[in-house]
């Protein structure tokens, strides 16, 4: 039964149980009916034999009267009607009804019922010595009566069976509504939605499940918030000491300029910068993985971009090379967390600055169809390399100071907010370069 829905299982089980019970009930009712009908018909035969008793006595004593009785009693030739014979002491038929066979019934001359082919015969001694009254009911009559009675008892039950199937189906679907509602609500919960399930007036059997899921969601939310807070605090706590070490080392490097230690000092400064960048990216990745897309506030990405573009343009290696082209109106609203979206866009721009051709512009294009494209110059990246760039610690080229985490962070965040990151090389409409395309989901 694996893979079948709970509803169809319930309907199948209820209908088959119901059909089984009805079958059992029908058989029992049929048997009782048969028993009762047989009893009634046997009583009727017995009663007829009793009524014949005094008449037989009179007829045996007065043969003329017997002829008269024959005329009175033998009134029908209906083959389904009761037939009788009065058997004399020598076994001959002294008298019979018109529908009775001309030969005596082949039954023992003992009081009681006897079944022979085509007849059920009741034998009883007559009032006159040696005479027997034998009343016979045609078997066809009895079987017809029995079938009619059983049909009238069981038939209606069988007719109600399909109606019961419809009623069971309706009742199951109606009862499962609440479960279905709960299932849909739980189904909507994922990495980007850990909101509590609202009160839906669920039945008492389901209410504890809702309460348990809500408790779990609350616990998960708290755990993820703690992780995010830890990542944010760690970033803060790490940056200050690294900044101090870097600043002191830069001073030392400046003082050692022109000496034999100058090169080593410069190397140490660069290593500190690399370490700082790696620590920052790891914390960003941790933050992105800790349900970063859960907060679904409405954020205008153009505001975020403006802050970032202003910041990057101040850098000597970027300056006016960074250009923004917006095809959409004054705002580009997406659902997510402001700072996580900031981290996403920052990583994308950093990636373009780090790996793009320094003599070519970096373009940010904001499309109408909820896409942001970031294009930079450079050699074409082979498609097999492109496939791997979203993985952590994979760099597009051997040179460059990056940790290979930027695009992994962007990809992780985009997936969590229900969007996507697409990497293309060459960039669309160009002969070379690289294009990173962010596609954001529609607002809900």
């Amino acid at each position, binding site marked *: 039964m694996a893979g079948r829905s709970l509803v169809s299982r319930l309907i199948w089980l209820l209908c088959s149980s119901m059909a089984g019970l009805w079958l059992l009930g029908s058989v029992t009712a049929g048997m009782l009916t048969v028993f009762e009908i047989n009893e009634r018909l046997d009583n009727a035969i017995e009663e007829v034999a009793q009524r014949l008793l005094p008449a037989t006595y009179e007829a045996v004593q007065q043969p003329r009267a017997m002829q008269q009785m024959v005329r009175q009693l033998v009134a029908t030739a209906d083959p389904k009607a009761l037939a009788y014979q009065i058997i004399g002491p020598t076994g001959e038929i002294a008298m019979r009804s018109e529908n009775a066979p001309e030969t005596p019934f082949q039954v023992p001359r003992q009081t009681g019922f006897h079944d022979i082919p085509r007849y059920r015969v009741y034998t009883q001694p007559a009032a006159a010595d040696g005479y027997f009254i034998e009343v016979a009911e045609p078997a066809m009559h009895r079987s017809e009566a029995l079938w009619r009675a059983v049909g009238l008892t069981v038939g209606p039950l069988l007719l109600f069976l399909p109606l019961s199937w419809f009623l069971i189906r309706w009742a199951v679907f109606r009862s499962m509504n609440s479960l279905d509602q709960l299932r849909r609500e739980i189904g909507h919960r994922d990495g980007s939605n850990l909101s509590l399930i609202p009160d839906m007036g669920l039945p008492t059997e389901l209410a504890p499940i809702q309460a348990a899921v809500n408790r779990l969601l609350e616990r998960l939310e708290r755990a993820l918030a703690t992780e995010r807070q830890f990542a944010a605090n760690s970033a*803060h*706590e790490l*940056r200050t000491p*690294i900044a*101090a070490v*870097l*600043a002191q080392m830069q*001073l030392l490097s*400046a003082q050692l300029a022109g000496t034999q230690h100058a090169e080593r000092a410069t190397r140490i400064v660069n290593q*500190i910068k690399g370490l700082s960048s790696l620590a920052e990216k790891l914390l960003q990745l941790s933050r992105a993985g800790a349900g970063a897309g859960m907060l679904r506030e409405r954020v205008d990405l153009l505001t975020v971009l403006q802050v970032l573009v202003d910041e990057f343009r101040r850098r000597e290696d970027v300056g006016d090379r960074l250009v923004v082209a917006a095809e959409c109106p004054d705002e580009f609203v997406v659902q997510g967390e402001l700072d996580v979206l900031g981290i996403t866009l920052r990583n994308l721009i950093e990636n373009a600055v780090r790996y793009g051709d320094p003599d070519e512009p970096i373009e940010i294009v904001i499309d109408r169809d909820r896409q942001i494209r970031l294009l930079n110059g450079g050699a074409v990246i082979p498609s097999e390399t492109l496939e791997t760039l979203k993985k952590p610690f994979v760099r597009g080229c051997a040179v460059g100071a990056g940790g290979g985490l930027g695009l992994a962070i962007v990809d992780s965040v985009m997936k969590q907010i229900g969007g996507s990151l697409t990497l293309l090389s060459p960039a669309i409409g160009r002969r070379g370069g690289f294009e990173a395309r962010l596609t954001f989901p529609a607002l809900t």
Partner: protein
Amino acid sequence: MRVLLIEDEPHLGSAVQEHIRAAGHAVDWFERLEPAEHAVRTVSYDALLLDLHLPDGRGLDFLRKLRRRGDALPVVILTARDLVSDRIEGLKAGADDYIVKPFDLDEVNARLEAVSRRYFGKSLPVLRVGPVELEWGAKVARMEGRPVELSAREWAVIEVLGRRRQSTVSKEQIEDALYAFGDEIESNTIEVYVSRIRRKLGRDFIRTMRGLGYRLGD
């Protein structure tokens, strides 16, 4: 230029102070907001480098208070918080620029000078005084097209005068701008620097206004 630095991490603070000093500027460094508040009320600074998390309060509150009382001192925030929301909050509070830790010391100098130039109308990258041409950004001076080498202190004196080009700057004002609290200054220090600059860029580059001070020549 006289800079107020508020930073509670001693190794970072000392390195930043030393580096800015090496560029010829005076730096008063405080690790807490309270003495910094007193200093900013008594000394005319040209720029403020402000950390956000300090032992006795938040840097942003200090900045908001500064702006509320109408102080237009150029402010560059030095912070470990790199989030866009932090940056927006800082800029809204009245900061002119925002540098995230860890940073290049040269970057700090460049940003300081950039915001200082924006404030004091030296947005023009090149200033011409007679035959002398000064490139503020690259710190290059040319006399009739020939490059002239100037020390950091000499550049600092020229910057003080260039910032207030239309007015006369007293010797005390130059001293205030060039020397931090506790620096030892000889009585004729400013005269010595002015004399050296005149030797390199010509007598008319700096004019002496008797009894008042100095100003750049036309």
